[in-house]
């Protein structure tokens, strides 16, 4: 990746795209290498507050309801917006729950993507080339295929994961190794790239413990900070429970799911990319155990390529309401292993050949136990 010294990005742009190398340079230039004492000083309070709010937003705002208007950096001092981003990452690292890291990465990426959709093409080119090494430039044809073109490698690396037909390479205008796209589509691809980039940032930082961070910090400051963190932690935990509750449903008992389905279920809820075959088997499972279509569709709202109309159709297809009218069953254990979806067997797994049987078996045992408890 070549690091250009010059940038056309303004302070306001950096506030919109705080994950960029330019934003990092800006922080370095303006503040040098920050020590924790400084960050915890009263001068920095607005930044700490903003960082905490960012994190809270990532678990409270509904992603598909975000709009460009909701994120006017003019409302807030750009430097606060810029600095609060790395600080938020550090705070999340302290909290140490990868569920929140993923939510944060997804949320920040979506936010940036919404802004990018309306950005000048030149600016999009600069951000994509400089930060992600994309081979991207302004389209030289007439604009009928979009304002921008990117190398097919950069296209495939981000679009191959998006499942809609419209994103297949064959449905693109491809000439001389370059895919011609609209700003809106480029912004969607960049969202993938930004999400991966932020997730990688969490990995780069490594594990951070309170002990490392707070060594040598003044007692009072230390206490204040720990309180802030604890409050945030409690908020997040409560929110996680709420989210789980939002997704708990009538008589279906997620605690009885076999390990494979539990994994898929949690992955989908946390917005992780789950391969098609995994989604298929999870959906088929949930239908078979009696979850409603609406509830199943809701589960998929966190996924990056969520499109309610398509998801609903797919769920209905698996439920046998549309299409071939077959009510599908989840893959059996052998196939789950082939596709790398089996995380390893527990005791009950040894006795079954299909995840569904696992669930029904545990359910039966528990019902028997309940009955036994309630015997006269």
């Amino acid at each position: 990746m070549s690091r250009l010294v010059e940038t056309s990005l303004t302070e306001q742009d950096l506030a919109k795209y705080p994950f960029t190398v330019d934003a990092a340079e800006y922080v370095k230039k303006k503040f040098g290498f920050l020590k924790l004492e400084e960050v915890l000083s009263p001068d920095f309070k607005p930044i700490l507050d903003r960082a905490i709010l960012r994190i809270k937003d990532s678990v409270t705002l509904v992603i598909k309801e975000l709009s460009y208007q909701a994120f006017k950096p003019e409302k807030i001092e750009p430097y606060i917006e810029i600095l609060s981003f790395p600080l938020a990452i550090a705070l999340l690292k302290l909290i140490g729950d990868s569920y929140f890291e993923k939510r944060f990465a997804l949320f920040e990426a979506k936010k940036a993507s919404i802004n990018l959709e309306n950005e000048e093409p030149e600016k999009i080119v600069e951000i994509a080339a400089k930060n992600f090494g994309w081979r991207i430039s302004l389209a030289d044809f007439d604009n009928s295929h979009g304002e921008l073109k990117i190398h097919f490698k950069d296209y495939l690396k981000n679009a191959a994961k998006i499942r809609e037909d419209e994103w297949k390479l064959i449905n693109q205008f491809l000439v001389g190794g370059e895919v011609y796209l609209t700003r809106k589509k480029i912004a969607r691809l960049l969202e993938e790239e930004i999400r991966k980039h932020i997730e990688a940032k969490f990995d780069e930082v490594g594990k951070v413990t309170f002990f490392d961070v707070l060594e040598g910090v003044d007692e009072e400051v230390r206490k204040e900070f720990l309180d802030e963190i604890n409050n945030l932690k409690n908020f997040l935990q409560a929110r996680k429970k709420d989210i789980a509750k939002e997704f708990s449903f009538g008589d279906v008992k997620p605690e009885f799911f076999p390990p494979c389905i539990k994994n898929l279920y949690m992955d989908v809820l946390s917005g992780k990319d789950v391969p098609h075959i995994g989604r298929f088997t999870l959906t088929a499972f949930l239908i078979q155990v009696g979850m409603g279509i609406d509830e199943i569709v809701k589960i998929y709202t966190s996924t990056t390529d969520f499109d309610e109309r398509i998801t609903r159709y797919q769920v209905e297809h698996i439920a046998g309401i549309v299409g071939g009218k077959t009510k599908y069953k989840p893959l059996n254990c052998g196939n789950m292993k082939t596709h790398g979806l089996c995380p390893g067997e527990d005791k009950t797994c040894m006795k079954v050949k299909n995840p569904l049987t696992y669930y029904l078996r545990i359910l039966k045992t528990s019902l028997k136990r309940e009955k036994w408890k309630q015997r006269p």
Partner: protein
Amino acid sequence: MEAKTLEFLRKKFREYYLKNLKEISLPSQFEKREFGFIPFRHGKTVMVRHKGFKSFREFSDFIVNLIPSDVYYSSAYYKNPSEEKMSEKGWLGADLIFDIDCDDIQDSCQKSPAEHKFWRCLDCGETFDENVSFCPVCNGSRVEEDYWLCELCLSRAKDEALKLFTILEEDFGINQKHITVVFSGHRGYHLHVEDEAVISLGADERKEIVDYIRGVGLNFKAKKVRRNILSTLDISKPSFQGRISRAIYDLLVESSKKLLENGLDRKTVKKIEEKRDEILTWLSNGVEEEVLIKVLGGEGRWIKIMEKALAKTVIPIDTVVTTDIHRLIRLPGTLHGKTGLKTFTIPINMLEEFDPLTDALAFKDEKVKIKVKISRMLRFNGEIFKLSKGEIITLPLAAAIFLLARGVASLT
């Protein structure tokens, strides 16, 4: 295969390798590649793989020592190519490989399916021109089907390779010098792309390239997609836009009788007949689809025509070879154990006139007397031989080795 034949083939392969080591060109960054070899032996073929070499000398010593019937190398680059466990090899990337095999072509060949095959008794080794459920010679019931080389299919495969070469250049912008076209030594052509841009692509991404080339998932029915990829129909445009326009042109220029045979309905054909000259002129000068839809009297008819044309532009590449990022592929300059032909890198300017049964021969000069076990025509190095089962015939070495290696002849 008789021990005598096996020994003879091994001896000839040995002579070839001793004389022609220079012909083998190791792939780029060969120290990072895995190599695999099939030794000459009876019964089941077992590959010796996970071999890594630090120098050409080390490699050539190995070949001369083993005298393998077939040699492969990995399209992938590894940190530790000789590790046996995939997870410990340390995958660094892989060339993009395409395989065009006669298998995927013969369905549309004008020769009958039986001409593409022969049958062999696994018990006594007898071969037959026709399918038999049990061997009339030894009464054994283990009869297996094998391929018989079809020159028409081979020639079609070459045309497809040329088409693919153009797509890689025009659509994917790959520089000529990064594409190698290789005759496999038997029934197909391989294209190797060694371009920095493709090396890091994963299996999912390669799958998208496969679908693009095979024409899978193209959503003609969606107007939005069509408007994007086919804003104008113009035979002079590059890549897909021009390719499909030319295919439509080629389709519509045909007689009405042919159009009906091609599956277009009467009404559509009548509309085409009325306006054929205009349509062809439009396609030559550039036209928007609305104009054509109007003339044809319906979007459905237009989509049907495009679908027919698309079928002519797609290439039947093997889906597994391209998406497999750990693939072992034949090494150019080595011999194919089932034919004795060379796996041959074809210079691009030679591709059009390349004739595998003349240009990829490894053995020359000598003649050998053999007993043939099959009745077929065989053309080698421009000479045509009429083989009839049971006959003892003296053939040029390359042709004799071909028949021996295919298991349809024995030494006298």
